[in-house]
C-alpha cells in the first residue's frame, strides 16, 4: 500500500513538474500560439512592426524552451531519485521550491528578454538605426563612421530585409539554430553549421526559382523533410554508436533477467 502511495505521489509530482502551477500552465498554453503567430508577423509585417514582433517571438521561443528544458531536467532528476531510492519529503520540497516557488526564475526571464532585444537589434539594423536616430545617439555613430568605424554595418545583413524570401527561411533557420544546441560546440562548428549553411544556400536558390505561393509551400515542405533526414543522418554519424553502447548493456541485462 505504502509503495503504491509512493508511486502515486511521484506521478503527481512529475505531472506537477511538467505543468508547473496553474499560472505556469496558462503561460505555457499561451506561449506556443503567441510565438507561432509572432513568427508569421515577423515574416510578413512592415519594417517598423517587425522588430517588436521579432522581440516577442524570440522572447516566447527562448523562454518557453528554457522553461520546458528546466522542467525536463527536474523531472529527470526526480525520476532518477525514484529509481535509486524512495523520494523523501526533503527532496519533494526542494523540487517544489526550485520549480514553483522560486522568484529567482524571473531573473532568467529578464535575462532572456535582454537577449531578445540584443538579437532583434542584430538582425534589424535598419530599425536599430531609426531608434538610435530618434534617441539622438546616432550622432556618435556618425562620428565613428567618419573615422572608419561603422558599427551598424558590422551587423550581418538582415534576413528579413528581403521580403521575397520571408517565410520559410527564418522558420527553418530558427529550427536549425535550436536543434544545434543539442550538439557539442566543436561538433556544431565543424559539422553541424556547415551542413545547415549548405542547405540554407540550396533553400535560398530554390525559393528564388519558385516564386509562386504553391511553389514556395512545396519548397518549404521539401526542405522540411530534408532537414528531418539531415537530423537523422547527423544522429547516425555522431550519436548512434554512443547510444547503442549506452543502451546495449541494459538490453542484455533485461534479456538475461
Amino acid at each position, binding site marked *: 500500500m505504502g509503495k503504491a502511495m509512493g508511486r502515486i505521489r511521484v506521478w503527481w509530482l512529475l505531472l506537477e513538474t511538467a505543468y508547473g502551477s496553474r499560472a505556469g500552465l496558462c503561460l505555457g498554453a499561451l506561449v506556443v500560439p503567441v510565438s507561432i503567430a509572432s513568427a508569421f508577423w515577423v515574416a510578413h509585417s512592415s519594417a517598423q512592426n517587425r522588430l517588436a514582433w521579432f522581440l516577442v517571438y524570440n522572447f516566447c521561443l527562448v523562454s518557453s524552451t528554457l522553461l520546458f528544458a528546466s522542467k525536463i531536467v527536474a523531472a529527470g532528476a526526480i525520476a532518477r531519485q525514484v529509481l535509486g531510492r524512495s523520494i523523501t519529503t526533503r527532496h519533494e520540497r526542494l523540487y517544489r521550491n526550485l520549480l514553483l516557488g522560486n522568484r529567482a526564475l524571473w531573473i532568467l526571464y529578464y535575462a532572456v528578454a535582454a537577449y531578445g532585444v540584443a538579437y532583434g537589434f542584430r538582425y534589424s539594423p535598419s530599425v536599430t538605426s531609426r531608434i538610435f536616430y530618434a534617441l539622438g545617439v546616432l550622432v556618435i555613430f556618425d562620428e565613428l563612421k567618419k573615422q572608419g568605424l561603422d558599427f551598424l554595418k558590422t551587423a*550581418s*545583413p538582415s*534576413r528579413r530585409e*528581403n521580403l521575397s*524570401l520571408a517565410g520559410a*527561411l527564418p522558420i527553418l533557420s530558427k529550427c536549425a539554430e535550436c536543434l544545434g544546441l543539442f550538439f557539442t560546440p566543436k*561538433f556544431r562548428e*565543424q*559539422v553541424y*553549421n*556547415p*551542413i545547415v*549553411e*549548405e*542547405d*540554407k*544556400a540550396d533553400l*535560398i*536558390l530554390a525559393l*528564388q526559382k519558385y516564386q509562386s505561393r504553391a511553389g514556395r509551400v512545396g519548397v518549404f515542405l521539401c526542405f522540411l523533410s530534408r532537414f528531418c533526414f*539531415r537530423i537523422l*543522418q*547527423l544522429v*547516425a*554519424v*555522431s550519436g548512434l554508436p554512443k547510444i547503442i553502447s549506452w543502451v546495449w548493456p541494459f538490453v542484455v541485462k533485461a534479456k538475461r533477467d
Partner: protein
Amino acid sequence: MPLPAITFLQWLVLEIIGGSTRSGKYVRDRLAERGHRKSLPAFYQMMSRLEDAGFVRAESVRATVCDQTVTERHYRLMGKGIRELADVRDFQAGLEIARSQGRQVSHG
C-alpha cells in the same frame, strides 16, 4: 616501403584540396565526380577528423547567395597534410616500379 597513414578517401580529399583553399561544397562535388558520394554529415565528419589530425585547416568564410549571407567552410592543407600527400605519392610511385619490375620478371 611503409604503408601510408591515411585511407584512400582521405588521400583523395587532400589531393583535391591541393595547394589552394577549397570550400567543402567544392571538395564534395569533386569527390562525387570521382564516384565517392557521401552524405553531408558523413563528409563533414570526415573533414572534422582530418582537421583534428592536423592535415587540414578550416575557416568559415562569408559568401552571398541571392543577396543572402551564408557561411561556407573552406579548407587548406597544413604541413602535415602536405607531407602525408608526398608520402602517398612516393608509395604509389614505389608500387608502380614494383609492378613494372614484376611484369618484366614474369615476361622474362
